[in-house]
């Protein structure tokens, strides 16, 4: 054991911090740190800045244009980007579709899509969930029927994050309806501009629009867009979910929210003193800070096992649950900073360059909405109940 960041790691942390400080456009940073709406173009701009620095794909091997960093370096990178106010790197292409293509794709698929993922020439979305298939993903009903050189795909996807911004979707569809639920599923790549694709917005609790319903009506997908073998998509889906879980410790987001919490608690006043000095409030921040420190050590402990290319197992569920709970508590305390001013909410004031008036100022306006929006992270990517089922079964052996 060596329970300290080594000199290279320390130097790397400083390098990333400086880079974010110098290169992240300030308008993007302001929107991100102040919980305002981040635009499609903001994500793309930042991804391209990282790409130009060769940091576009922190988790990819160098052979594909990635950094080749180990998990510790990736965590340092994530923390520094988040605390510096960078938008998250959109995961659907980078951390979901790409690892699948690397592991299961053809050479042609890799050559075509991977460079476009890292440069964000393509924006990907994830077409897994359906109205009847959420936690029970294998219940999905979307059908893909082989007709000559095409699959003809019909069905409905839902909760699809950024489908309205995406030009590509990776999706699961049933190619054999006779087989057992898990056996007849295939993994397909879909161009969102294909006729028959309809995207409808879903408004969420924060009055925002990130997620969508996607209707697929006789959509023709060329057979070369099949990834891996027909009817073997379930193994790919599970492989991908493993990747999705590791990022979900949310350590960068936790760190950013904690920093913002302390800043806002310093600038808000209670009885003429900074709120952060109030013993009741300070105790709540303190407790959460302790939880966060431990969470970070759990993450480091776990990722140290991963080096040597052993993927993280069911233990990732522990991280996912703690990460989601801590982030939810952080947004709860952020909301409480606003006091009575947490209640008035002017959604228009979250938009780019809005001059809409707010009751308690632009800083406090988004905090309650942010709290409610954060309820999602214990639901998506495998709900916390499902994570606990995994812990009970796969770790404890019940």
């Amino acid at each position, binding site marked *: 054991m060596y329970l300290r960041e080594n000199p290279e790691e320390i130097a790397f942390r400083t390098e990333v911090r400086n880079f974010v400080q110098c290169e992240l456009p300030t308008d993007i940073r302001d929107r991100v740190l102040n919980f305002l709406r981040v635009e499609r173009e903001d994500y793309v701009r930042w991804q391209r800045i990282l790409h130009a620095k060769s940091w576009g794909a922190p988790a990819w091997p160098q052979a594909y244009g990635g950094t080749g960093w180990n998990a510790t370096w990736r965590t340092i990178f994530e923390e520094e980007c988040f605390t510096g106010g960078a938008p998250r790197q959109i995961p659907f292409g980078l951390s979901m579709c790409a690892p699948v293509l690397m592991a299961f794709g053809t050479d042609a698929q890799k050559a075509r899509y991977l460079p476009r993922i890292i440069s964000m020439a393509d924006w990907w979305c994830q077409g897994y*969930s359906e109205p*009847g298939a*959420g*936690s*029970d993903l294998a*219940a999905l009903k979307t059908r893909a029927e082989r007709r000559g050189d095409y699959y003809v795909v019909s069905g409905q996807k*839902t*909760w699809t994050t950024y489908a309205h911004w995406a030009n590509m979707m990776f999706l699961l569809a049933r190619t054999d309806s006779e087989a057992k639920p898990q056996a007849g599923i295939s993994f397909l790549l879909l161009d969102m501009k294909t006729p028959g694709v309809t995207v409808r917005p*879903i*408004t*969420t*609790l924060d*009055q925002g629009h990130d*997620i969508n319903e996607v209707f697929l009506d006789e959509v023709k997908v060329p057979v070369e867009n099949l990834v891996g073998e027909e009817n073997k998509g379930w193994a790919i889906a599970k492989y991908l979910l493993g990747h999705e879980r590791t990022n979900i410790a949310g350590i960068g987001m936790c760190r950013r929210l904690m920093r913002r919490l302390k800043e806002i608690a310093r600038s808000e*006043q*209670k*009885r*003429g003193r900074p709120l952060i000095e109030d013993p*009741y*409030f300070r105790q*709540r921040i303190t407790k959460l800070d302790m939880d966060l420190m431990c969470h970070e050590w759990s993450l480091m402990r776990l990722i140290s096992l991963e080096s040597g290319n052993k993927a993280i197992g069911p233990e990732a569920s522990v991280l996912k649950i703690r990460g989601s709970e801590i982030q*939810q508590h952080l947004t*709860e305390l952020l*909301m*409480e900073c606003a*006091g*009575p*001013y*947490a*209640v*008035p*909410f*002017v959604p228009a004031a979250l938009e780019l360059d809005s001059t809409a*008036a*707010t*009751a*308690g100022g632009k800083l406090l306006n988004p905090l*309650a*909405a942010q*709290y*409610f929006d954060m*309820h*999602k992270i*214990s*639901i*998506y990517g495998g*709900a*916390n*109940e499902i994570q*606990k*089922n995994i812990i009970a079964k796969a770790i404890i052996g019940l």
Partner: protein
Amino acid sequence: MDFNYSEEQQMLADTVGRFVDKDYDFETRRNLSRSAAGFSEDNWKLFGELGLLALNVPEEFGGMGGGAVETLIVMEAFGRGLVVEPYLPTAVVVAGLIAHAGSTAQKEKLLGAIANGSRRFALAALEPQGRFDLWNVETKAVSSDKGFVLNGRKSVVSGGGSAASFIVSARTAGISTDQQGISLFLVDAGAIGVTVKDFPTIDGLRAAEVMFDNVTVTADALIGVLDGGYPILDAAIDCGIAALCAEAVGAMSKLIEITAEYLRTRKQFGKPIGSFQALQHRAADMLIALEQSRSAALMAAAKLDAVDATERRAAVSAAKTIIGHAGRSIGQAAIQLHGGMGMTDELAVGYYAKRLVSIDLTWGNSEHHVERYASTFS
């Protein structure tokens, strides 16, 4: 003690319950919330006809002379329907405040107007720098030959956008954090120098910022004694808090019913998700929190007329704290158990959760009331 409703109380519960069940589905509520006024004048008239606005007005001034239990009954039903009409500020808080502290002339003039639905009021008490402290008052009222001149700003005034008059706490003596030296004034929303900016709230209601710029009122606008407004305000807001607690209980019980129904009908892995024990236990926790909250709301209502104000404060703060926590955990659980559906703006679920959080953040959050309770014993 008798925890059963009297015949009249049962009738009241049935009447309001019917209104909410029949005329206040979530779609209706949503449309009202999005309308320009944010609520329905027709409903307001109906409340007048049903006698709900007269509930806290003494009989000699044209009211029903009801008490805390009647208010609890109405507010619980309103909580179930997430009613958006600004009933609480006018019919509970201001009605109670005038009935308790107004002069005979004020009572005659104002209480009748409340009872018959012709006038709405709002309480302008909190200020931007004061967070939840009612005694933190920097709005100034300076006496002049005509009466008083008011200057200052009041924040998050519930129902302020649709009120014809405000009851405003203003400093007439002392420094900005003294409990002494606060006086209460009746100010017309239309008076010269009053600016009202109405804002939507996270839960689909409205709250206003109200600015007073050299607003002149006559001497008879003073309510209660000069410099002695704080205890009156404190008591009136405790009545408001008890009513909010009852509203929260209504919202919680309806939210649990909605969630239970979802658990029965939503299927995953070939069975209703309500058959998973993990979710049954979560639902059971929600019910336990509701039961605690119901007791807390009754306790607060029972102590509103306690002779010893400390007893009242302790009970109200205890109830508010317990209900604040319960509302958060029930709201979060309801969203969680709905999965992705819980995150959508289309469903009522999110709005119940938001109303419960807003109630926690109105007139003192749990933290504030823990502190307030702690100051009641040595």
